[in-house]
C-alpha cells in the first residue's frame, strides 16, 4: 500500500462525489448508484470490480457522459463535468462490444475522433499510423471492420479511443469477449499501453483475477456502493467485509470471539478455544463476536495439533496444488490449499481426522 505522502503527490484525475443514479421514477426507481464517492489518481490503472448489476458500468457511463447523475458531482481535474455531453469531455471509451463503425475501415475508425476535433490531415495521418503501430495493427489499416478477428477489433477499439489523446481512458469490460489465451495477452498489452501512454485508465470488470493482475488500485462494488478501495494486495489480503472477501478469491469464514483489540490488531478466540492474532479491517466497530477470514493457502492441514480440527470431507487435486475440504468440529466448512510436491501426495483421505494450522498473521477480522 502506498504511504500517505506518496498518494498525495499524485493529482486526482477523476473524482466522483456522492453520486446517486436512479433509473425510473417514484417507487419503481432503482438506485444503480447509491452515494458513491471515489477519487482516481493521475496515471493510475484503476479498476471497478463487481458482479453484474453492481453499478460499475453505470459509474463508467456517468464519467463518459452517456448518463447524467441524479445527485452528486463528477470532477475531472477539479472541474465539474457532470453536466457536459460526452463530446465535450476529454475522456474516451473502449466499449464492451468494441462498437467499431462498420461503414469505416480500421484507419478511418481510428481517425474518427481526430477528424471530429478538426485536426489537420497531416496530423491525423501520422497520429493514426502511430496508434496502429502502438496496437500492432500497422498492416491492417485498410481492412473493413468485418474482416478482422475479435482480438484485432479489440486493438482497433483501443487505438481509436487513444488516438485523440484523452485525459482518461474508460474501458468497459473490453476483454470479456475474448478467449482465455487472448485475454491473458491483452491484459499484458493493456498494462504496457497504460505505462507507455501515461494515461489514466479506468477499467470495469467482473473478473477478479483480471482486476488483481492489472490494477494499481481496485474499487470493489456491490449493489450500487463501493465497499472497499485499495491495491490488489489490500483487497485480497485485507478485505474489509464479507462480500469483498468472498468475491475476491476463495476464502474461509470463521466465527470468533474478540478477546483483545488495539491498534488494528486483535486477538480472537476460535470455536476450538484456541486464540490467534489477527489484523482488523478499517472501520470495524468494537464488538464481542466477529467474522474472521483465512485464505486457504494460508493454512495447512496437519495430522496432529493445529488451532482447529475436523474431518476430511473431500480431496481435490488441481495439478499445482490440492484442496482439502475439512468439516470443522463446530460444523462449519474449511478449505486448505496445499502446494503439491512431485514425489508425494498430500497424505489425507476422505474421513481422516485433520488439524488445521493457521499461518501467523493469516487471519483478518471483518468490518461487519
Amino acid at each position, binding site marked *: 500500500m502506498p504511504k500517505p505522502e506518496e498518494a498525495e503527490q499524485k493529482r486526482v484525475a477523476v473524482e466522483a462525489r456522492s453520486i446517486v443514479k436512479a433509473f425510473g421514477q417514484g417507487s419503481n426507481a432503482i438506485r444503480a448508484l447509491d452515494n458513491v464517492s471515489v477519487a482516481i489518481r493521475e496515471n493510475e490503472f484503476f479498476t471497478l470490480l463487481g458482479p453484474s448489476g453492481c453499478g460499475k458500468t453505470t459509474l463508467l457511463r456517468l464519467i463518459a457522459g452517456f448518463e447524467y447523475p441524479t445527485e452528486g458531482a463528477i470532477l475531472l481535474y477539479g472541474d465539474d463535468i457532470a453536466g457536459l455531453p*460526452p463530446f465535450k469531455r476529454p475522456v474516451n471509451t473502449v466499449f464492451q462490444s468494441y462498437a467499431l463503425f462498420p461503414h469505416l475501415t480500421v484507419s478511418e475508425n481510428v481517425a474518427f475522433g481526430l477528424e471530429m476535433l478538426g485536426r489537420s490531415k497531416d496530423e491525423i495521418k501520422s497520429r493514426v499510423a502511430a496508434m496502429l503501430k502502438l496496437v500492432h495493427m500497422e498492416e491492417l489499416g485498410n481492412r473493413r471492420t468485418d474482416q478482422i478477428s475479435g482480438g484485432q477489433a479489440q486493438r482497433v477499439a483501443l487505438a481509436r479511443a487513444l488516438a485523440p489523446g484523452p485525459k482518461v481512458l474508460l474501458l468497459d469490460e473490453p476483454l470479456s469477449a475474448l478467449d482465455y489465451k487472448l485475454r491473458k495477452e491483452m491484459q499484458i498489452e493493456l498494462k504496457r499501453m497504460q505505462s507507455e501512454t501515461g494515461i489514466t485508465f479506468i477499467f470495469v470488470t467482473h473478473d477478479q483475477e483480471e482486476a488483481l493482475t492489472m490494477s494499481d488500485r481496485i474499487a470493489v462494488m456491490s449493489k450500487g456502493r463501493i465497499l472497499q478501495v485499495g491495491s490488489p494486495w489490500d483487497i485480497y489480503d485485507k478485505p474489509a467485509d464479507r462480500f469483498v472477501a468472498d468475491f475476491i478469491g476463495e476464502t474461509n469464514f470463521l466465527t470468533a470471539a474478540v478477546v483483545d483489540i488495539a491498534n488494528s490488531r486483535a486477538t480472537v478466540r476460535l470455536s476450538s478455544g484456541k486464540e490467534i492474532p489477527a489484523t482488523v479491517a478499517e472501520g470495524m466497530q468494537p464488538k464481542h463476536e466477529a467474522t474472521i477470514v483465512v485464505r486457504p493457502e494460508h493454512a495447512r492441514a496437519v495430522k496432529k495439533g493445529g488451532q482447529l480440527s475436523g474431518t476430511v470431507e473431500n480431496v481435490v487435486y488441481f495439478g499445482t496444488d490440492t484442496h482439502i475440504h475439512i468439516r470443522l468440529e463446530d460444523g462449519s466448512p474449511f478449505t486448505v490449499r496445499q502446494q503439491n510436491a512431485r514425489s508425494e501426495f498430500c497424505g489425507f483421505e476422505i474421513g481422516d481426522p485433520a488439524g488445521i494450522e493457521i499461518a501467523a498473521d493469516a487471519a483478518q477480522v471483518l468490518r461487519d
Partner: protein
Amino acid sequence: MSSAAEIARQTQQREIRNRWLLSAPALLIIFFAAIGPLFVVLAYSFMVKGDYGDVKFGQYSLDGWFSVFFQRDIFDDTLTLADAHLSIFWRSLKLSFFTTLLTLLLGFPTAYFIATRPRNTREIWVFLVTIPFWTNLLIRTFAMQQVIRNEGVVNSVLMWTGIIDQPLQIMFTDTAILLGMVYVYLPLMILPLYASMEKLDFRLIEAGYDLYAGRLQVLWRVIIPLVKPGVIAGSILVFIPSLGAYVIPRVLGGGKNLMLGNLIELQFGAGRNWPLGAALSITLMVIVMVALLFYVRNAARSGAQHG
C-alpha cells in the same frame, strides 16, 4: 448391368431434373406474370393502331414510338418535338423527385422516433403508420381533396383566422398532386427506414458522441451511413409508384396537370392509340430503370467514400 459410376450418373441426372421440377411453379409465375406481359407490351408498341383502339396484328410500324417524342403538324406536315409529352415527362420526374425528397425528410425523423421508443411500444407506432393502407387509395385521395379544396379545412381555418381573405387555389395544381403523393407514399418511406433503424446499434451512436462528434456530425457521419440501405429502399419504393401515379394526379390535378400514368391511360382509352400507350409504358419503365441505376450507383459511391 450398371456400374457404380452409371448409378451415380443417373442419380445426379434425377437430382437435376427434380431441381427444375421443384422450381417450375416459381419460374412459371415469373415468366407468365412478370416477364411475358412486358414482351406483349413491347410487341404492341411496334404495331399499327386499330381504328377503334386495339392494334392491327401483323402490321408493324414505328408510329407509336415516333409519336412519343415527335408530332407532325396537321397542316404543313413539319416535324416538331412533342412538347406536350415532354412536359408531362418532366412534370412526372419533378413531382416524383420532390415526393421522394419530402417523404424522406418527413419519414426519417418519424422512423427514428419509432425506432427509439421502448421495444414493446414500437409495434403500436408501426401499426399506426400502416393504418392508411386499410383504406382504398381513391378514398384517401378524395380525403386529401376535402382538406385542400377551396372550401376545405386548410382554407377555412386560414380564412377564419384572417391570415388570408381569398381561398388559396391548391386544388388542380402541381402542389396538390405533390401533397397527395407525399401523404399517400409516406408510409412506404417510413417502413423500410424504420426496418434499418431498428437494427441500428445505438452503441455506435454513443461511440460517435464519445469521439467528439456533435449531434449533427453523429447524424451525418454515423446514423445516415448506417441506415443508407433503408434510405435507398424507401426512396425506390416511393419514387417508382410516384412516377407512374394515376389516381392522385387524376383527382387532385384535374384534367390539365397530367402525369405519365394519366397520359398512358389516355392512349388506351379515349385516345385509341394503343401502340403509343405501349411505347409510353416502356419509356416510363426505362426512365425508372435509368433513374434507379443512377441513384443506386451514386448512393453506393458516396457510401464507399465516407459512408
